[in-house]
């Protein structure tokens, strides 16, 4: 299993993501700089980490979504390679139009940084097959722009297609219909504001994020 973490100027969860991928696969991921135009050969899992790429200039994720490496990520996603975007990575995926909707300033205007309960809405995806539908899991969030928005027709469509992966069990940031994580139509791209890579070790205070990596990386026990 060959994995890659895309690194932008201002990414700050790239190393946490690398630790999670190495812990689960036993192999360190390739760290791929945003100026690269190609991914390493044979990559079969791509992660876009959290942080503040390009200082959140213009809009969160807007500049990163137009960086050279995103064309390669988009091509890989089109070929069915799993792509996980966490926090800023989710913002990048929506800005790159690999996922529907947009992430706006939190409704309460505060940066929210705490562990929150999530409801697993879809346990059939390659990322969520390690969970039970309806299960509540605890995953940390840390964001200012996590307020998911899409028009009503889009929300109805993604709900109807089972593309809401996770929902906040309680109000966190004003997200439309409490949406915390969204899948693309093919199911191989997941964006989520909560940080599963921050919940993979008992020392983190919880390990509910581990099953996401185990399922997505095909090593589920």
């Amino acid at each position, binding site marked *: 299993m060959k994995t890659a973490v895309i690194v932008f100027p201002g990414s700050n969860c790239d190393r946490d993501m690398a630790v999670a991928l190495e812990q689960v696969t036993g192999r360190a991921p390739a760290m791929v700089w945003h100026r690269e135009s190609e991914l390493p050969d044979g990559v079969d899992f791509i992660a876009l980490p959290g942080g503040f790429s390009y200082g959140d200039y213009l*809009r969160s994720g807007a500049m990163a979504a*137009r960086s050279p490496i995103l064309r390669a990520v988009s091509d890989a996603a089109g070929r069915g390679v799993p792509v996980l975007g966490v926090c800023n990575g989710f913002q990048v995926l929506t800005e790159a139009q690999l996922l529907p909707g947009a992430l706006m*300033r939190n409704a309460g205007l505060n940066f929210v940084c705490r562990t929150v309960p999530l409801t697993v809405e879809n346990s059939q995806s390659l990322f969520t097959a390690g969970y039970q539908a309806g299960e509540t899991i605890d995953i940390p969030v840390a964001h200012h722009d996590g307020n998911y928005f899409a028009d009503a027709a889009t929300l109805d469509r993604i709900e109807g297609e089972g593309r809401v992966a996770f929902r906040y069990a309680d109000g966190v940031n004003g997200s439309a219909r409490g949406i915390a994580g969204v899948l693309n139509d093919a199911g191989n791209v997941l964006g989520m504001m909560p940080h599963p890579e921050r919940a993979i070790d008992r020392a983190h205070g919880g390990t509910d994020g581990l099953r996401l990596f185990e399922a997505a990386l095909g090593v589920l026990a």
Partner: protein
Amino acid sequence: MKVNVYVTLKPGVLDPQGKAIHHALEGLGFGGVSDVRAGRFIELDVADGTSDADLDAMCAKLLANTVIENYRIERP
């Protein structure tokens, strides 16, 4: 040639920053403000003769996120 681009949130999209500005205005004693919407102003210095289509593409591809924002291009 200077071109002004105004990026604003679409009607119906909640604007938490506008709301906060509104509250701050009220806190300063300015009554009679019924709503505040915040947007972004971008000034471009482009080659003379840059086409409307090019300016429109710049807005649609980068300057605005058309999921949540509208844009208006103002030539001098």
